[in-house]
């Protein structure tokens, strides 16, 4: 390791060595390293293989923009496709290269390189067509994807939380720190988020002075002051990755300081946002510019200053701008031979020259080609007159200029303009409440960055800009150079997706002339790095080829996320049983203890489907047992989830008449009626019973699954379409739990429970309501029936339901009472031909089709849906109408199976909505929606199944049991 680390400096802790493995070999680094810096310090050059051509690739950058050094982390918290430059080194870390076998240095996949010339951009559109893509796809797919997907969840948990602030500052470089400081001093609520391990941004990569002291001292002082400010939340390792409408930003903290917490997602609602996100360096496209050892110059500085890593002996610097001069000087200061500074500009500014006094500088020269495969051996350099010379080196530090990080700004739909002086796209007009500051706004030098941060921070706080600390920096100047033409070798613009200048030119030649088409034809910018170092080079290359300005070519769309985010940090605590809310009634536990098969039954309730007597009793038998109990003895079911509303007010009666198809205003107190509600386009919204409690109060019930839709509908009608009416709506679903006792013995059970009102059929008939006490508990009892039997819906406060339930089971025991699940209820309602919205209403049926024409009170003035039903019927189209069906031969009919004319394989004329094993008729009975069904009772129709089986059925009235309704009225 000696010779590859500097003796002093850097943000590493030399007293804390860390062991790690890479591709199975053991290495040592230090606390403060990234995986990339530790690999460099260990002399590892080839870190991965490229996506398409399997070319060896090394570390190119030092941050989130890294296109090449992709690794897979192993171990309990494995994750794939990680940039080695953003993985903090930890003890025992294990990683391996992506996309190579058996090793990155010797990769069998590299045979593709032999065919590289035959596979330019878009080659697969032109080939693999014969005999068919299916033949080739599997092999091509096998080559896809870089790392494997994780195959088990991580050990820790995730959390998401909300935050609110006056100001969110993205980026804690000098500009962001300055802005946050000014705003914090003004008393604003500030969130400062930066993706780095520590604050400081570009300052960590350079040896600049602020107020005469090392810049990091200033950073430390600002961080300390922010930490002490009560209204400031300062997050590091926190990527601001999404900028949503109304200044809602997504921040993911990847190392939250809480035990067991893997990552935390913040949703920040900010009054104002400052994007102080800095600038990213870009490359230059020249032949073989992807070889390990070719790095971006600013990143080389990062390795020198942050990690004290200097694994190089001889460096060449290639640039078109001033910033690389600082890099060259830093290299020299670290004891590395700077063999040459190659500057494509004919005129190098004097201040830049002064910065590298004594180092060999070749103005007007370019690097044409890189020598060496897995390791850089030298470069070819061309002079202005075209003469080529070779310079040996093991590092080529390149700077193609700087791109302000406008991603967040652009996500917020801020516009961009191309600045010819900076040769970069800059924020132009904001749309959201956002301002860019520092390098992200084009203020590339430190004094400007500090001033810009202070100015913008003060502006948000409504104050004049304060004085800023003293600093100096080499001013930035650039003459753009996008690519260096060379007849041999590949010049990459996107290292990750292996896109070359030739690919871009091919796209143009073939007519894919728009920057968006170039992107899609070549896949440039579509990798994990989303082209952070390459996209602007593509634009520049295009502009040059088309003779246009880069600003006219424009950018592709910047989209979230800024950097890839783990899905776990987006869903947060919504995990396992908390993936969706769930609801229980007061007897849910009892049901489960009783062995019920529970399932989701709408509106997030879990309900019993049926109650097997023994764990292995077949479902059909359990259901039949429950059905028989109701038909011949007594059963009880938990009807608590039924939607219930109390409606009151001087205009309540008129309101209900407007909503229901039939008249409710004529009900007398304590009486109820079944009713349907339609949407205004004549489709069925819900059905249920409506009771009048007293002169001005009503109790409306609806189906479980529609409770929220119904609530919404009621309030919508009340508030928007009839705002003048005085009506109050109070949901009471959760105030009244119920036990519904049903079956011929129901009255006996009620009597045994003890009621303080007369239960006789004369005194308390069907469709009436009584308030009083049942089993000593305050109760509201409704005589409604969804089973066709004598039935009492005993509503009590939920706190009383367990007690009531116990007593019902006790009182019913002599009659063999059984708890009844939803499945038995389904059988019972089909026998009776009662409607189930989920089965019989599929978006076309109207009340007439369902045989409920009687609920369409024709004489009634306008109600919702009335006109639409009339218009639809006036069309004269064939109606699908509800009928009963009796399978000839007594076989079950699959629910949903079509009926076709004569059972032929032609368009259907209806379908089976439900089919059950009837306990009263001891045979299969069904319901169907059938074209003109009402006129076809007595006919034979045909169910046709997949595979061709035809089942003849007799069409009948949709009521198979007790057509007169004597039992439910008994």
């Amino acid at each position, binding site marked *: 390791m000696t010779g590859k680390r500097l003796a002093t400096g850097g943000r590493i802790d030399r007293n804390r060595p860390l062991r790690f493995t890479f591709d199975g070999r053991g290495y040592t680094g230090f606390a403060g390293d990234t995986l990339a810096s530790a690999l460099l310090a260990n002399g590892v050059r080839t870190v991965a293989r490229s996506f398409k051509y399997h070319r060896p690739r090394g570390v190119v950058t030092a941050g989130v923009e890294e296109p090449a050094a992709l690794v897979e982390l192993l171990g309990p918290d494995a994750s794939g496709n990680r940039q080695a430059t953003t993985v903090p080194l930890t003890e025992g870390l294990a990683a391996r290269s992506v996309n190579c076998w058996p090793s990155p240095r010797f990769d069998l996949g590299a045979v593709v390189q032999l065919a590289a010339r035959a596979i330019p951009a878009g080659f697969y559109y032109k080939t693999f067509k014969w005999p068919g893509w299916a033949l080739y796809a599997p092999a091509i797919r096998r080559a896809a994807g870089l790392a494997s997907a994780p195959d088990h969840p991580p050990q820790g*948990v995730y*959390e*998401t*939380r*909300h*935050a*609110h602030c006056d100001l969110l500052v993205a980026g804690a470089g000098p500009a962001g720190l300055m802005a946050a400081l000014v705003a914090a001093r003004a008393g604003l*609520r500030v969130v400062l988020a930066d993706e780095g391990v520590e604050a400081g941004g570009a300052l960590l990569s350079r040896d600049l002075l602020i107020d005469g002291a090392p810049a990091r001292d200033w950073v430390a002082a600002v961080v300390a002051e922010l930490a002490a400010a009560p209204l400031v939340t300062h997050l590091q390792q926190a990527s601001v990755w999404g900028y949503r409408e109304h200044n809602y930003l997504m921040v993911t903290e990847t190392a939250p300081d*809480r*035990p*067991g*917490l893997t990552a935390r997602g913040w*949703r920040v*609602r900010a009054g104002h946002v400052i994007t102080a996100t800095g600038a990213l360096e870009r490359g230059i496209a020249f032949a073989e510019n992807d070889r390990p050892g070719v790095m971006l110059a600013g990143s080389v500085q990062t390795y020198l200053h942050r990690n004290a890593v200097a694994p190089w002996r001889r460096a060449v610097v290639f640039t078109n701008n001033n910033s690389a001069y600082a890099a060259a000087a830093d290299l020299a200061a670290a004891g590395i031979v700077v063999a040459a500074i190659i500057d494509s500009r004919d005129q190098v500014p004097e201040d830049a020259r002064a910065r590298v006094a004594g180092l060999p500088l070749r103005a007007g020269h370019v690097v044409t080609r890189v020598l060496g495969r897995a390791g850089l051996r030298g470069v070819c350099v061309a002079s202005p007159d075209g003469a080529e010379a070779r310079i040996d080196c093991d590092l080529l530090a390149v700077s193609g200029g700087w791109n302000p990080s406008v991603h967040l700004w652009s996500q917020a739909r801020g516009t961009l303009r191309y600045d010819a002086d900076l040769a970069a796209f800059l924020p132009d007009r904001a749309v959201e409440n956002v301002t860019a500051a520092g390098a992200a706004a084009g203020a590339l030098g430190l004094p400007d960055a500090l001033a810009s941060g202070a100015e913008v921070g003060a502006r948000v706080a409504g104050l004049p800009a304060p004085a800023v600390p003293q600093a100096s920096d080499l001013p930035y100047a650039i003459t753009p150079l996008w690519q260096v033409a060379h007849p041999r070798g590949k010049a990459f613009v996107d290292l990750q997706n292996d896109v070359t200048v030739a690919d871009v030119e091919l796209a143009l030649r073939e007519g894919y002339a728009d920057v968006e088409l170039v992107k899609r034809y070549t896949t440039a910018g579509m990798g994990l790095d989303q082209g952070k170092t390459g996209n602007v080079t593509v634009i520049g290359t295009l502009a040059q080829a088309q003779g246009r300005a880069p600003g006219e070519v424009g950018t592709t769309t910047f989209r979230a996320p800024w950097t890839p985010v783990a899905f776990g940090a987006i869903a*947060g*605590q*919504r995990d396992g*049983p*908390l993936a*969706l*809310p*769930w*609801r*229980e*009634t007061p007897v849910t536990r009892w049901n489960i203890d009783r062995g019920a098969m529970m399932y989701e039954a709408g509106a997030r*309730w879990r309900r019993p489907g049926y109650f097997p007597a023994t764990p292995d009793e077949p479902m059909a038998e359990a259901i039949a047992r429950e059905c028989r109990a109701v038909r011949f003895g007594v059963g009880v079911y938990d009807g608590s*989830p039924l939607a219930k509303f*109390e409606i*009151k*007010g*001087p205009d*309540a009666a008129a309101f209900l008449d407007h909503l229901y198809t039939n008249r409710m205003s004529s009900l007398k107190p304590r009486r109820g009626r079944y009713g349907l509600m339609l949407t205004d386009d004549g489709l069925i919204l819900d059905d249920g019973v409506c009771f009048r*409690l*007293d*002169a*001005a*109060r009503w109790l409306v019930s609806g189906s479980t699954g529609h409770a929220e839709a119904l609530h919404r509908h009621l309030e919508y009608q009340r508030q928007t379409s009839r705002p003048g009416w*005085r009506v*109050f709506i*109070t*949901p*009471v679903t*959760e*105030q009244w*739990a119920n036990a519904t006792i049903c079956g011929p013995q129901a009255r006996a059970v009620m009597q045994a429970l003890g009621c303080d009102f007369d239960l006789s059929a004369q005194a308390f008939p069907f469709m009436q309501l009584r308030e009083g006490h049942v089993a000593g508990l305050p109760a509201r009892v409704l005589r409604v029936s969804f089973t066709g039997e004598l039935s009492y819906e005993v509503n009590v*406060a*939920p*706190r009383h339901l367990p007690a009531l339930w116990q007593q019902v089971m006790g009182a019913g025991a002599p009659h063999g009472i059984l708890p009844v699940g939803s499945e038995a209820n389904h059988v019972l309602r089909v026998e009776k031909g009662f409607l189930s919205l989920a089965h019989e209403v599929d978006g076309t049926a109207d009340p007439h089709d369902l045989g409920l024409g009687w609920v369409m009170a024709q004489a009634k003035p306008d109600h919702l849906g009335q006109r639409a039903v009339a218009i639809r019927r006036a069309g004269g189209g064939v109606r699908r109408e509800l009928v009963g069906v009796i399978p000839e031969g007594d076989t079950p009919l699959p629910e949903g199976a079509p009926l076709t004319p004569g059972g032929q394989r032609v368009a259907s004329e209806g379908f089976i909505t439900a089919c059950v094993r009837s306990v009263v008729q001891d045979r299969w009975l069904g319901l169907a929606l059938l074209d003109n069904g009402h006129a076809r009772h007595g006919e034979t129709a045909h169910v046709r199944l997949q595979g061709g089986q035809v089942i003849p059925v007799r069409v009948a009235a949709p009521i198979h049991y007790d057509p007169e309704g004597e039992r439910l009225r008994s």
Partner: protein
Amino acid sequence: MRYDVTITPLPTMALFDLKGRAEALRDWAGAALPPFPDRPNSACGDGQGILMWLGPEHWILRADLDREQALEATLRPAEAPPDLSIVRVSDTLAFFRITGPEADAILAIACPLDLHPTRFGPDGASFTRAFGVSALVAQYTEGFDLAVARSYAPMLTRALAEAAG
């Protein structure tokens, strides 16, 4: 525990849902009601009960359960005039008390409300959304009361426990 909080389920409380004009309610209920809060989404208590103003013409009266019968007797829901609505809803909400120095962290995980003291005063009370369902948040001396529909109480118990770690 990841966070320094205490989460306590509260026993059932007497709750009455009141709708109508404030003057009309005051006339009908008289001394049974605490003073009406003067700002939306705030609460006012009188030692006997707390009145929360939670929507236009909508209040919830909260008191100890042992006052339920007495309140019902004074408020007489069934007899109230047509332009008032009074409904006993005691069983509708299940309350959890969240206290401790990091109670606000749990609330920030649960719901999108800005509960900073400058935005949500010591008398703050409002419906919002917590863990995906409708919830009532009320400021409490050293923390918050959070209530959801009773049927969601088991879910909320679990969600709170997991959030706290």
